[in-house]
């Protein structure tokens, strides 16, 4: 009798292994962990955006009930600053300004929420009570929150040692070639836009527990991190000066990151250091207000762009000047976002022969800004896809047609762009055609007319995009200023009975790795999914790893696993050859069965695994016992997912309310391992993109106070704001990794915002609007409609 087992390998929409744990409330998050004899930290934060600290009086607080210790920046003279992981160089070759980011403020505070002191007490409440009794004497200074204000003459200096507030003035591309191309253009479109600042708002606030064992001198940090090994490296080597073998970093279940939990935050260093000082565990958990005020924000660009076209609507040249807000200090990857993750994508899916981009990164009195889902690529895509729509309108060429005319053709890969990247594969026409068909583009005008009869303004918008992820080749990023390698590590540990534990250096915080990565093992080794466990998030268990961001887990981490499995299979074939008295070359392996080619002699996976650990009949002279292999995989290139997003909206003219009525995403994410998880990732990304386009905005006033510092004023997308998202994929394989995968985690957030705004602008076309800044709120839309009515009346 044949045993029918469900297919669980590559391409199967198996249910997520982790969901029982999450859905039944059994996840183990950092705040769920409690250590014996634990204390609690409360961090006193600056209420001012910019001030000198004239004095801190905590004598009264120190004697309050339950207080164990109070520390300020003055107690940490030997600690290093929070490091930045990527050094950018100015146009003249000099390195960027890299001011000190002290763990606790020293001398000055530079944003509302800057950490001033930490109170450690027996309970959270006691720590908070004592913090309220600390008297900080601030000399309030003028503050600056926006990038344009920060570089204006006479602006206050965020850092005394960075006059003018410019962190770097960087460029990419050939300015002379670019200028020549503009000189020969038949039309130049000039376009300015803002990419709105966002608060990440992961469901789980950040948390950290520091622990110290004085008998071994070992420190442990439990933290809400997307990359525990990176935190160990940054915090250990640069801040606390602890060697790796005495520092363990654990990132247990993490409830969403979206980039905001990549970075090394001061609180991690504070609790780890303080645990050593008080010789007790120290726990800190952010409340939601702290999340708003201190999690690194995303986006925040102000851009001027010019696009040169010939008489046929072919793009000749693009020139972009961007001001990027860094906030008050340089967060871990902040400097790379508006440069190598943004300007390198400005070629988009088009054959534009020359692109010249100039980026100034600017310090302001706001919380640091860093990577947020998409990180640079949404900013590039929003700029390009809005600009192309404006160009279409102003040249009179249909907006789909102008895209087709400029697409990189499917037979042009590998394609070298003028901004450093070489795209390995893609078929933009195919995803466009699929998108147009799925969205009913051709029949849209009927729907517009039908909506108009109901008193609604209906519009449709399109975005065709490419992004770069699966970061990254270490040598390439190293030459560009990255201070780390970006390979990944995988260990395949086959147990004596054949079940498998995988140790991966990537980290799952909602993506479903415990399922997707296990499917790779099932597919390659033939081990049932239930017998494969994925272990991640603990530097004491995992050999090494760079973590999860930039849609890299499968493309880089999965590839490392494939390499390790190749080693496993090679060794297992040798064992099988020995048992079956055949030569290794004759032993074939296919999903769990070793066979001597052309015979019915077989050995099962389990028999080989057992033999490896019970080597009674074993080629012991040639092979070590055991079946446990590790591989490091350093990618040869980025991966380049791309596709087509189409959004359809209806606007209620009386109120300006925008409703997204249809959303179609057709993405090329390379080979799909689990279609259900891909669909979920794309939907989630699209929801965040719609959030950016219509709802979300982090707004600082001119004094540096965050006005949208709670959900009362920051509009997170709710289910009722979101349409059903139709997701389809069209695959061209990545040519340089063994799985052919590209990554799907960010495509939704990258492709969608311009599709939404293009649809809104289309809906309002009778009002002569050229552009609407995100988020397109009802009030903003009404202003446009109202102004249009006024125009009509005049």
């Amino acid at each position, binding site marked *: 009798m044949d045993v029918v087992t469900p297919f669980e390998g590559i391409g199967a929409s198996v249910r997520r292994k982790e969901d029982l744990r999450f859905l039944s409330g059994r996840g183990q998050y950092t705040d769920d962990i409690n250590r014996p004899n634990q204390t609690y930290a409360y961090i006193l934060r600056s209420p001012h955006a910019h001030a000198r600290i004239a004095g801190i009086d905590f004598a009264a607080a120190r004697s309050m009930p339950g207080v164990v210790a109070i520390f300020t920046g003055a107690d940490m003279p030997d600690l290093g600053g929070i490091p930045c992981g990527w050094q950018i160089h100015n146009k003249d070759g000099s390195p960027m300004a890299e001011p000190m980011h002290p763990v606790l403020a020293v001398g000055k505070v530079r944003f509302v929420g800057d950490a001033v002191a930490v109170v450690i007490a027996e309970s959270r*409440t006691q720590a908070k009570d004592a913090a*309220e009794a600390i008297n900080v004497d601030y000399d309030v200074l003028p503050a600056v929150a926006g990038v344009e204000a920060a570089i204006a003459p006479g602006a206050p200096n965020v850092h005394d040692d960075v006059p003018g507030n410019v962190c770097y003035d960087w460029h990419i591309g050939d300015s002379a070639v670019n200028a020549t191309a503009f000189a020969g253009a038949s039309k130049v479109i000039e376009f300015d836009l803002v990419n709105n600042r966002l608060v990440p708002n992961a469901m789980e606030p950040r948390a950290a527990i520091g622990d110290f064992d004085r008998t071994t001198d070992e420190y442990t940090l439990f933290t809400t991190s997307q990359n525990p090994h990176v935190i160990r490296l940054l915090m250990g080597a640069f801040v606390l000066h602890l060697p790796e073998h005495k520092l363990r970093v654990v990132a247990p279940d993490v409830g969403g990151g979206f980039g905001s939990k990549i970075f090394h935050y001061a609180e991690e260093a504070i609790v780890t250091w303080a645990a050593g000082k008080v010789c007790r565990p120290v726990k800190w958990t952010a409340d939601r207000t702290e999340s708003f005020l201190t999690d690194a924000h995303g986006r925040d660009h102000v851009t001027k762009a010019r696009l040169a076209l010939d008489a046929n609507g072919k793009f000749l040249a693009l020139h972009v000047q961007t001001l990027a807000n860094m906030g008050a200090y340089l967060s871990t990857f902040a400097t790379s976002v508006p440069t190598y993750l943004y300007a390198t994508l400005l070629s988009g899916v088009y054959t534009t022969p020359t692109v010249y981009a100039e980026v100034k990164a600017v310090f302001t009195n706001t919380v640091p800004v860093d990577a947020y889902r998409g990180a640079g690529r949404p900013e590039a895509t929003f700029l390009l896809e809005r600009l192309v729509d404006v160009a279409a309108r102003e040249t009179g060429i249909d907006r789909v047609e102008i895209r087709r005319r400029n697409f990189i053709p499917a037979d042009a890969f590998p394609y070298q762009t003028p901004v450093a990247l070489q795209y390995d594969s893609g078929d933009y026409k195919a995803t466009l055609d699929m998108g147009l068909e799925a969205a009913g583009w051709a029949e849209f005008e009927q729907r517009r007319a039908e909506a108009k009869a109901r008193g609604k303004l209906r519009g449709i918008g399109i975005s065709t995009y490419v992004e770069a992820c699966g970061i990254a080749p270490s040598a390439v990023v190293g030459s560009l200023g990255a201070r780390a390698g970006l390979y990944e590590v995988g260990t395949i540990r086959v147990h004596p009975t054949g079940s498998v534990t995988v140790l991966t250096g990537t980290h799952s915080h909602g993506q479903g790795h415990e399922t997707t990565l296990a499917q790779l093992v099932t597919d390659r080794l033939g081990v049932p999914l239930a017998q494969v466990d994925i272990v991640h998030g603990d530097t004491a268990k995992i050999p090494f790893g760079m973590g999860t961001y930039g849609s890299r887990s499968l493309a880089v981490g999965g590839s490392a696993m494939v390499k390790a499995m190749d080693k496993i299979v090679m060794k297992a074939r040798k064992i099988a050859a020995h048992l079956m008295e055949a030569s290794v070359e004759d032993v074939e392996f296919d999903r769990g069965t070793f066979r001597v080619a052309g015979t019915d002699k077989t050995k099962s996976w389990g028999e080989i695994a057992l033999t490896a650990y019970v080597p009674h009949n074993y080629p012991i002279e040639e092979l070590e016992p055991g079946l446990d292999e590790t591989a490091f995989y350093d990618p040869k290139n980025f991966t380049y997912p791309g596709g087509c997003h189409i959004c359809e909206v209806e606007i209620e003219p009386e*109120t300006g309310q925008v409703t997204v009525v249809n959303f179609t995403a057709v993405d090329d994410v390379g080979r799909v391992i689990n279609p259900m998880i891909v669909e979920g990732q794309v939907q989630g990304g699209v929801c965040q993109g719609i959030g950016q386009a219509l709802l979300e905005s982090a707004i600082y006033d001119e004094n540096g106070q965050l006005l949208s510092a709670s959900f*009362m*004023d*920051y509009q997170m997308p709710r289910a009722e704001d979101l349409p059903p998202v139709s997701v389809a994929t069209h695959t061209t394989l990545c040519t340089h990794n063994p799985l052919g995968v590209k990554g799907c985690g960010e495509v939704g957030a990258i492709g969608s915002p311009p599709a939404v705004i293009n649809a809104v602008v289309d809906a309002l076309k009778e009002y002569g609007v050229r552009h609407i800044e995100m988020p397109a*709120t*009802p*009030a903003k839309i009404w*202003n446009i409609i109202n102004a249009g009515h006024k125009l009509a009346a005049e």
Partner: protein
Amino acid sequence: MYDFAYHKPTSVADAVKILSADPDARPISGGQTLLPALKHRLNKPTSVVDLSGIAELKGIKRNGDTLVIGALAKHVEVSNSPEVKAAIPALAMMAGTIGDTQVRNRGTIGGSVANNDPAADYPSAVLGLGATVVTDKRRIAADDFFQGMFTTALEPGELLVAIEFPIPEKAGYAKMRNPASRYVMAGVFVAKTTSGVRVVVNGAGPGVFRQAEMEKALSASWSEAAVAGIKQSADGLNGDIHGSAEYRAHLVTVMAKRAVAAAG
């Protein structure tokens, strides 16, 4: 949250006794405003007087031409009440749109009216229907009760017991929600009652207020068209990151039309 004493009286008299004796004691019913304030340490009461055990504050009943709703009636109860649905459907509809499911399962009409948040729903219905606020000491006409942002005629220690709504000929309510908080950005409650037409604006200004011009227009002709041309002045209305005073003023006209349409 700071420490506080907790009381759970079983009669209005006992509750008032505690509240009168201590000006820093706070009554709590659904806690949808007070609890977040406590959690954020924005409020430091010496004691919290939990009203949930007081039977006299509960219940919804019709007395002839009046609907009497006890202060402790939860939004979900008002929303689902057959008496409310039959007598003042606009009020039941309003209750069903307050906050979200969790808020409606906890929040009470007495709490909302006593708090008088300018962006709350209920004050517009209380004023719009010319209701009477009943306290442990007296009866207060709605026109005298609401005194601007978070301010009412209630005196320290005085407890809101019930609200008496005269049953109108017709009434309607429409609102635009604040996109972030989902509180009212601008709302209008209209009612045609035996004592005349009332039009009340909530959300848009620092407190609920009657719109006299619209009342006059609707008295002359109860129709959407009657209010469609009336512009609310933006003077004194709220303007913030979600919308200007001019936008809110514009919404008042839009919501007035919709409220009239909803009233039928």
